[in-house]
């Protein structure tokens, strides 16, 4: 029984960290590749929600005692509320400032590259 719990903790935590690294890399690449603030908002949400959330889940699995586990649980709950709200605040700020959307260059229709 002890061994099964040990292996579940080991594999679950490693999987959570690997997912966190992969999604963090995807989000940061998008932060540099995308042309305007609207589309960067989407990848930043990927980094801040999926990557940080799965990292917190990994630390929750690995946490050595109960007091740290409950503290991580509280942090996780607050982060689930605060991070999407932050993204919403940015989106409303961009909307009210009338920041223009990115458009393709002139004379280039969708499907021209094929």
């Amino acid at each position, binding site marked *: 029984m002890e061994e099964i719990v040990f292996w579940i903790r080991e594999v679950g935590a490693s999987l959570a960290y690997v997912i966190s690294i992969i999604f963090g890399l995807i989000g940061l690449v998008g932060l540099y590749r995308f042309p305007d603030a609207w589309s960067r908002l989407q990848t930043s949400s990927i980094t*801040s929600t999926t990557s940080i959330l799965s990292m917190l889940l990994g630390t929750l699995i*690995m946490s050595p005692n109960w007091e740290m586990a409950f503290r991580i649980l509280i942090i996780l709950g607050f*982060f689930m509320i605060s991070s999407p709200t932050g993204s919403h605040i940015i989106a409303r700020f*961009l909307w009210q400032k009338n*920041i223009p959307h990115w458009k393709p260059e002139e004379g280039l229709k969708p499907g021209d590259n094929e």
Partner: protein
Amino acid sequence: MSQFFIQLMPWIMLAFGSVSLLRLILGPTLGDRLVALNVLSGLALGFLVIQGVLQGRALYLDVALVYDIFGFLGFLALAHFLKKKDE
């Protein structure tokens, strides 16, 4: 295996944070800077939590919670101020 990852994660968080800090400095418009600031706040929270679990101290987790709350409030105040500025 997971010990290796838990030793690696603070450095990964630092690297991600420095990359998004570069976006915060470079960002051409105000919206890009706000996006980068949001990412940076989340990454700093993750760094504090994983450092606390790595060293086995619950104090870091309290600091991380308070940092998250105040970062969120500061972010809200900053967006509100920037919105009011031009009107």
